[in-house]
């Protein structure tokens, strides 16, 4: 099981971001909060069959 700090290193690597040492602690805190918040979105049962709110129109 990879810990949160390894996961943070992974996503930073994918995004090509290299924070300063003094940022790491805040980034890790924000990472964990963000993951918890994102999980909230998947608890909304009514969203199961819903279209996204952002809509595309072929006409520019």
């Amino acid at each position: 099981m990879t810990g949160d700090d390894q996961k943070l290193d992974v996503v930073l690597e994918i995004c090509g971001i290299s924070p300063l040492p003094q940022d790491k602690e805040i980034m890790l805190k924000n990472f964990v909060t963000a993951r918890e918040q994102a999980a909230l979105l998947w608890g909304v049962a009514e969203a199961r069959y819903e279209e996204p709110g952002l809509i595309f129109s072929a006409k520019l």
Partner: protein
Amino acid sequence: MNEYLTISDALDGLRENEITATELVEKAIETGKSLDDELGIYIARYDEHAREAAAAADAVYAAGDEPGLLQGIPLGIKDIITTVEGETTAQSLVLDRSWGPAIGDAVVVQRMRDAGGVITGKTTTMEYAIGVPDWTKPFPIPRNPWNTEHWTGGSSSGTGNGVAAGAFLGGLGTDTGGSIRIPAAYCGISGIKATFGRVPKSGCVPLGYSLDHIGPMARSARDCAIMLQVLAGYDPSDACAVDAPVPDYLSGLTGDLTGLRVGVDTLAQHVGDDGDPATVAALQAAVSVLSELGATVTELALPYYAELNVATRVTSRSEAFAYHVPDFRSRWGDYFQSTRTGVGSAVAFTGADFVQAQRVRRVGQKAVAALFADVDVIVTPTASIGALSLEELGDLGGGWFRSMHTSYWNAVGNPALSVPMGFTAAALPLGMQIVTRPFDEATGLKVGEAYQRATRWHLAVPPLAGRYDVAVRDQGDLTDTAA
């Protein structure tokens, strides 16, 4: 020379030659200059340009021509919106300084100029409308005019404290998660985030493409109506602008709320003991004023409260991250720490999280539309706490975000007006948030303006600005307002 607190009073004075635009603007310049160092109102002041514009405005009055809706009125522009007078910085070392001048005036700025408005300068903002003040960066620290150890709220900080202190009578802010309404509430003035797409947002540095709004901030709801009349309306330069007709907002301000159905949610249940006790009391007092004015008031609970706030956060962080990632990679350290770690938290979200956030917004839209089948207006506090002290701010991850009740309405796009509704025991302003159906700003402004005929909170002027004690005396001693 009597003092003009609001745009509408100043316009009357100008029309009846009680004051000239030159005098009005000079007074504003003088106030701005005297308080700027202490309050951090401006990034750049355009004194000379303003004086020229004021003289031009006087010429129109003198010639007896039809004056514009903002003829001769001094206005502050948040420094992420472009104007011809100079650069736009977004209060950041990173923004390419040639970007703003290449655009010239944003559509909203052009509209205010065409209406005779006088631009006094570019006001302070949180970095890229998201980074909290950072003392290690060469930018002013915006301070609350009611207590300079406290924050103005953000991100339209300088527009907020500038209106409150009298550096200008109105100004532009932007609102992606509450950045018009929070500084309006914390500085004790009015401000409206209109419907998404109501006011064109081209010529503005983006934060969240599907959440950003440009909007007016001024002392009164009536002043916001005057400014919105100038700002609203479709423009092809903004891909998100909606081509819907603009009603006459001023004629809608009848002061009569009979038959209007108002739904109230104190949101105290979401804030727990973080909330300031004065908030619920002030809201209940405010709502009783609305019912005295003829409104029928019921209780309601906002659906998906936490989920929609998260949907706004996931969306704004992800959209901002796409915009910033090239500069994050090359100039990470040039950003405020709170900006880079705040927007940087988007690394935690997957592509699917972003799509899911848009599905949740849709579910929220449907549920809110259902609420509006039974009410015409929804009222909540703008925030459950007064302005935090500057030390308490920390970074954007702090829990205090839970006490802000604004980003919910960015998720679903409804128009939301904030008006002052009193003070905390620590004499810090509190705001009431008035929300209506999409493109029905008129009803929200009518409720706010009617409320401001019956109360004077919006006329309270920070002691620091000390020149007008008339309003403060009428409110009684500020400290007992929380009783």
